[in-house]
């Protein structure tokens, strides 16, 4: 059986599963919203096995899992480790017990994830994070051009970086985006942070010391590239985001009334090869890469999101990405079944 770990509201997973049904590949989908409990883990000199129960209903034994697709999310193991009300007179003990139970549970989950990573698989829980700092460093090491990047904690350093880059500097998270909702007087509001340009006025407002923050040289662009990578192949689209004030810094500030023009794009063979090397080094079988093509004709690597959405790349490029993922999973499953 092919095991899939994902989220309940994940359209790409739904579409891949339709193809798996078509190809008659047996699979089981675990969403991060599902409750997963460990029934047993058995370790001896002869064998290793475990069984888990999903939503108190379906039992899965380790040897049933032949292949694994890590799409998104995590195994939700809702054991309670909130002991505080038992130890009101000793809050430190409650804290220590909670920490101990948490560690015990993390160890169990680590072994489950490692077992899944040792099956034929696409991506893994361990490589799910979009660590821009790590990825930029690896990309630069492989000869991909990267924008000059600074992480600092003091305004003096930031000011010096700002002065080094007359075309401007940007600020963004070093991990994936973060969203939150507020509720005030019955009015809810969603907030997100995108890439922003730092102005001289902003510099005046910032405190002298701050939490480690990532800044980057602002690059001029002819267009942006969104590249979906799958097992050695790149499927790219060019996004003409720079012609619209709303999207020029970050295409995710979608202009609904007048969307950016997105077209399929063929990457140079040498760049495809470098992307392949890069993805191998970061241990990703698939992912969504963002790059910039400058007016000077240079390709700059920005980041890779291991769990990024690829539906719009498939649609704009006319790439059958859901089917390609399903075919790859089918191949993995059949290879493991035979061996």
């Amino acid at each position, binding site marked *: 059986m092919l095991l899939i770990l994902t989220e309940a509201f994940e*359209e790409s997973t739904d579409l891949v599963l339709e193809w798996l049904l078509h190809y008659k590949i047996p699979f089981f989908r675990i969403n991060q919203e599902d409750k997963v409990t460990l029934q047993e883990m058995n370790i001896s000199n002869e064998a290793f096995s475990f069984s888990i129960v999903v939503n108190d209903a379906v039992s899965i034994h380790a040897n049933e899992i032949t292949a694994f697709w890590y799409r998104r999310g995590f195994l939700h193991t809702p054991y309670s480790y909130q002991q505080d009300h038992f130890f009101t007179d000793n809050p430190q003990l409650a804290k220590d017990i909670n920490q101990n139970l948490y560690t015990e549970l993390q160890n169990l989950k680590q072994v489950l994830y490692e077992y899944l990573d040792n099956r034929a698989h696409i991506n893994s829980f361990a490589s799910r994070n979009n660590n821009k700092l790590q990825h930029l460093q690896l990309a630069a090491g492989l000869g991909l051009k990267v924008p000059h990047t600074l992480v600092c904690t003091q305004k003096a350093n930031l000011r010096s970086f700002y002065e080094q880059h007359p075309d401007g500097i940007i600020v963004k998270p070093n991990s994936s985006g973060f969203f939150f909702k507020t509720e005030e007087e019955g009015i809810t509001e969603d907030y*997100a*942070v995108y890439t922003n340009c730092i102005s001289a006025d902003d510099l005046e407002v910032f405190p002298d010391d701050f939490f480690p923050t990532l800044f980057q040289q602002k690059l001029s662009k002819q267009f942006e590239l969104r590249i979906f990578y799958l097992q050695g192949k790149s499927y790219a689209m060019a996004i003409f985001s720079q012609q619209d004030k709303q999207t020029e810094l970050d295409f995710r500030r979608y202009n609904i009334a007048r969307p950016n023009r997105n077209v399929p794009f063929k990457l140079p063979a040498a760049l495809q090869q470098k992307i392949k090397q890069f993805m191998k080094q970061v241990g990703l079988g698939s992912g969504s890469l963002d790059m910039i093509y400058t007016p000077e004709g240079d390709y700059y690597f920005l980041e890779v999101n291991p769990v990024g959405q690829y539906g719009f790349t498939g649609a704009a490029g006319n790439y059958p990405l859901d089917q390609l993922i399903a075919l790859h999973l089918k191949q993995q499953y059949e290879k493991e079944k035979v061996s």
Partner: protein
Amino acid sequence: MKKKKYHKFPEALQQQLPLYYYYFEAIGETDTSLQSRVRFHGSAPLQTNRSAVRNFYKHISRML
């Protein structure tokens, strides 16, 4: 283009945050595709401020 509305964190807290926290902008009211993107990212729906706070600290701890 619609004028952006930024979220203001308490000033004392702002100094303990990455500087991109100055730029959290309101989304969603007129932008349905972004709302669905939020849903697909699994970070939402954040129904209460409590969950927003929990996610906030999770996010901070991931960065260090």
